[in-house]
């Protein structure tokens, strides 16, 4: 079974083909970083224009690399939300048209489900698992019981973790995109120099808050008359350490709940762009070891936005008999817990699908 995947929900134009034996047959990502750099963030209209300009040729190149024709495929998947709607529509219309002319199923993939299922492509992880989904737009903890079966344990009450990274990097004038730039700066910084707050740490539950931390970074920076490069590196390191403490604390609570409800300690899976941060991975790895489970993190190229994860999520749904109609509406907002499983029982003894919850 072969599925073409398309990703256009933010600032990466991507196409990939995956096979049901977990092979990534072809994988291409075109980053728009230079187009948005001058604005210090992603501009939706610029992103949408760029996706349209490049997507069809990128797909043609992907099919060439895979040495396949459209007729060899079993389905066409595209990110259909959540995301910047102008870009999402470019991918969705392209996928619908390719599906229609080749008489193939169209697979409307939830971008977050793409992240959530990536470890099944990269590491063959079985259900259930505990998922920490951390990216520029999202920060949540979920129990994953099957395709389309997510139970939300908690999430951010304000900023996403990646957003806090990006905004702090901007405050510290470390460059764009902020996450990787801050991680680099932190390597040469003293994490113990600034005592930044750890919002929510020590409280019960699995919710996050990052806006106070970001404000504390601004405050600490303003107290230095002329911040040197070393000051900024120290602040970056202190910020990253605070985020690591918060994530560790929230994951510890979630792992305890997961064990109590599902009778197994994990595994703990981390996905999304922030999962590319090595310092955070190391901390979560240690936590997993403490509670007798393991941390599974996809390779870096599958943590940031890509189309292999979209193709894979589409393939997981297709082999359970799922597909979407050609009038499927793209959704700017589409919480994971609103997804439904394609019908098959994911594993023996799986708990019932939770009722829709407020995200």
């Amino acid at each position, binding site marked *: 079974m072969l599925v073409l995947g398309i990703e256009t929900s933010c600032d990466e134009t991507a196409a990939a083909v995956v096979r049901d034996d977990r092979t990534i047959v072809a994988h291409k990502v075109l980053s728009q970083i230079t187009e948005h750099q*001058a604005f210090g963030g992603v501009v939706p209209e610029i992103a949408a224009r760029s996706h349209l300009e490049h997507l*069809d040729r990128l797909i043609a190149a992907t099919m060439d690399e895979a040495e396949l024709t459209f007729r060899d495929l079993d389905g066409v998947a595209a990110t259909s939300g959540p995301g910047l709607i102008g870009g999402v529509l470019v991918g969705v219309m392209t996928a619908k048209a390719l599906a229609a002319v080749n008489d193939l199923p169209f697979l409307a993939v939830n971008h977050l489900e793409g992240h959530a299922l990536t470890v099944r492509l990269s590491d063959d992880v079985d259900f259930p698992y505990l998922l920490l989904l951390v990216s520029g737009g999202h920060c949540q903890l979920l129990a994953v019981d099957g395709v389309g079966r997510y139970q939300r344990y908690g999430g951010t009450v304000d900023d996403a973790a990646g957003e806090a990274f990006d905004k702090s990097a901007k405050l510290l004038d470390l460059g764009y995109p902020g996450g990787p730039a801050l991680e680099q700066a932190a390597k040469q910084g003293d994490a113990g120099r600034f005592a930044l707050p750890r919002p929510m740490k020590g409280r019960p539950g699995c919710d996050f808050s990052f806006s106070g931390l970001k404000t504390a970074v601004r405050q600490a920076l303003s107290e230095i008359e002329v911040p040197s490069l070393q000051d900024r590196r120290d602040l970056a390191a202190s910020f990253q350490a605070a985020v690591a403490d918060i994530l560790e604390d929230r994951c510890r609570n979630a792992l305890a709940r997961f064990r109590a409800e599902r009778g197994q300690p994990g595994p703990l899976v981390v996905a999304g762009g922030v999962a590319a941060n090595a310092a955070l991975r190391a901390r979560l790895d240690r936590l997993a070891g403490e509670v007798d489970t393991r941390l599974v993190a996809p390779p870096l190229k599958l943590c940031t936005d890509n189309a292999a994860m979209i193709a894979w999520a589409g393939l997981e749904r297709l082999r359970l008999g799922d597909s979407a109609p050609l009038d499927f509406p793209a959704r700017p907002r589409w919480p994971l817990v609103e997804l439904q499983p394609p019908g098959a029982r994911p594993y023996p003894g799986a708990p019932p699908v939770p009722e829709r919850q407020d995200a």
Partner: protein
Amino acid sequence: MTASTSASRVILAIDTSGSAGSAALARDGRVTAARFEIRTRGHAERLLPMISEVLEEAETGYSDITGLAVSVGPGSFTGVRVGLATARAFALGLDCPLLCLDSFSLLAEQAHEAGYNRTAENSPLAVLIDSRRQDFFLRSYAPSGEPLGPPLSCTPEELAGQLPTAHPWLAGDAAARAATLPGLEMTAGRVLESVCHCDARTLARWASNPRAQEQSLPAAPLYLRAPDVSYPNKVAAK
């Protein structure tokens, strides 16, 4: 390619650039099936089902199509992209040529088909398209169909000065609004009401004509307006 239609030129034309969505199929220059819906939203949901209905009615399959046509705007940014993304993917999937026409020229074609220039006075035509802002998207045409100058975007105050004569005919979905502006009262009776929205039927006929090969534009949007963005203060100061 297919034996039964080896001599036929089968064109699928689509338009979602503005305040309506349409799809049409032409066989050797004659439209055999079409759909047209007034809508400013929901193009992305309706377009593929509309095309399926057209193909079914025309008893044609995707593999019978020998050419594609799409309007490239100006109009709604999202609508223009919906049409172009779909048409470009069709062209990729079917490996057949894609012919592109701007929405001004499409409306001018429709005005010609409606016979506007058969009137005695032979006035030029001003095509006015809704920009979704205060501004008007405008392009003017001689009675012969030749464009008079490039497409442009102008404010309501600038519009009177940009029209080709004091008494042009007006077409397009912003024509009625333009005719109510101060200084343009004399155009009020000259709005071609039947030439308000782009229509894929005319696009399909245009693309069936050999001259379309030369007239066709690149398969890229005609936005006529840069994205609304501002530089952060720090960058702007540099």
